[in-house]
């Protein structure tokens, strides 16, 4: 319990730092961002008016506290390019990103863990080499390439699944596979090596000596400990999924947070950029906390040590 509270406090501090760093990065650009956004032929009066509306004419520390206060009230300002409150835009986009990320994570973990266990159970067999070969493709293929190839084969050529958009649950299948592909590869490899390592432990010999079958030992004795490194990796993967979502959402034209962030950069839209990046980082930090908590739950040795 104490440890969870400590982690939570740490996360809050990190998020404060994230907000500060993001603020510095976005505001450090020389010149007036509004003038840059509106181009060379903009009316100076209009630039001044918008700068005033955004509060850009105030002292920099004052700007930061106003920004922080607004963020705590979930007010991320109004998007310059889209003319709507950033909070509204993100509320509309978030469910899509969440669905995509959850589907991708489920796909990655289920296939990764399954392939990893099978590979370990039949290590050095044909099926092991096949799975590990495929997982290598997963590790090395850039997300945009997988996404485009999947789109080409299953949507354009075979007409089995929708090519883009978010109209039905079917639309999420290809993006989820594309996004989860890398993650599935690393989960499978780690699951395999971790399981093989645990199988060397003494207590596994004991289990065999008690007359358990190979499958029984694997499932009831080895798996739980072998999961620990995989869970740790899941935390890191969560952040990688959010990174990959930017690309996946772009290729499949999904209206999500990642695509908003990309649009914000192309339109030099400061409120939208700050909002989407802050929100994504919050999601990544929460994902990390969740994995930490899961780890504590799975490994009583750590909880007892405290």
């Amino acid at each position, binding site marked *: 319990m104490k440890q969870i509270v400590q982690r939570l406090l740490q996360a809050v501090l990190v998020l404060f730092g994230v907000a500060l760093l993001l603020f510095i*990065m976005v505001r450090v650009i020389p010149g007036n961002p509004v003038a840059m956004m509106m181009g060379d032929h903009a009316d100076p009066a209009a630039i001044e008016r918008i700068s005033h509306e955004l509060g850009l004419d105030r002292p920099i520390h004052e700007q930061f506290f106003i920004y922080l206060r607004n963020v705590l009230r979930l007010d991320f300002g109004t998007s310059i390019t889209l003319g709507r409150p950033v909070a509204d835009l993100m509320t509309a986009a978030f469910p899509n990103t969440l669905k995509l990320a959850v589907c991708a994570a489920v796909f990655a973990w289920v296939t990764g863990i399954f392939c990893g266990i099978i590979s370990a159970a039949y290590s050095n067999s044909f099926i092991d080499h096949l799975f590990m070969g495929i997982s290598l493709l997963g590790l090395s293929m850039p997300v945009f*390439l997988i996404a*485009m190839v999947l789109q080409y084969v299953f949507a354009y050529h075979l007409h089995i699944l929708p090519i883009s958009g978010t109209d039905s649950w079917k639309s999420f299948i290809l993006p989820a596979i594309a996004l989860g592909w890398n993650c599935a590869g690393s989960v499978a490899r780690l699951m395999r090596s971790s399981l093989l390592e645990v199988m060397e432990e003494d207590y596994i010999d004991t289990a065999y000596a008690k007359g358990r079958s190979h499958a029984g030992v694997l499932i009831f004795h080895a798996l739980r400990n072998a999961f620990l490194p995989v869970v740790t990796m899941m935390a890191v993967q969560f952040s*990688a999924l959010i990174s990959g979502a930017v690309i996946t959402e772009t290729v499949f034209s999904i209206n999500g947070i990642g695509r908003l962030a990309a649009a914000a950069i192309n339109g030099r839209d400061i409120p939208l950029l700050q909002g989407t990046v802050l929100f994504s980082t919050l999601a990544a930090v929460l994902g*990390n906390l969740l994995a930490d908590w899961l780890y504590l739950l799975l490994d009583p040795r750590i909880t007892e040590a405290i």
Partner: protein
Amino acid sequence: MKSTRALSRANRENTVRSVLTRLFRENRMAAVSFAVIILFILAAIFAPLLTPYSWEEMELIHRLNPPSAAHLFGTDEAGRDIFTRMLYGSRVSLLVGILPSMVSLAIGSLLGVTAGYYGGWLDAVIMRLADIVLAFPSMLLAMVLMYMLGGGLFNVFLTLSLVNWASAARIIRAETLQLKEREFVESARAIGVKSPKIIFRHILPNCVPTIIVLFTLNIPDSILTESSLSFLGLGVQPPAASWGLMVNAGRQFFYTSPWLCLFPGMAVMIIVLAFHFLGDGLRDILDPRRRKQ
């Protein structure tokens, strides 16, 4: 003084030659990967000699030609030879993989060793900064930095250098904390060697195996991030050739002329895989904790 230096040197048993010999003898995949990387580097250096075409000259009569004897990987929407553009693109991808990894490893090692050796508030400040940088999803941090700096090759270098230092700093700090307690560091301190000298003579040289492994594994990450940034149009700007940018440009013709995207995309895949294997192989040899297995 002499004996402490000998002790700290005895702790580093690996020479370049012994590492490479063991790598080739024990790990066939790493050896093949090493050869592939050398091949790519040679192709990047000698690009003008390997192709009769120019990377920027457009020949609109030959636009979107499929792969043939004249154009090995076909031509793009402006009639430029894809193979040629990929050769020149490999310069960007390799540089983008190697240079920022060097810079971020240098920053990460220095900050990590400082934090670990001196401890106290310096440690706290550096490590909290690393926590904050690591909290960002890396792609989004890279995007914000590209927004701040603007597009272009040099800014891609800068961005990638600033994104990847934090995890290196964490690992080198942990290593420093262990090395600090070793006899050769203590005896150096006992005979009055100054701290900066201990760091550069005794601690950093002993971190070199870790740094090499981190460096090799950082390269594929940088290459993937660059290609993703360029794919989004935020990285290297046209008409420069980068593999990610080529995929981005070819996207609108993908259904009719898939070779525009497939070949550059696969090039990214192969080089990433090669560096990955090499890094893994080096880690097996250099990391004492893994050596037993």
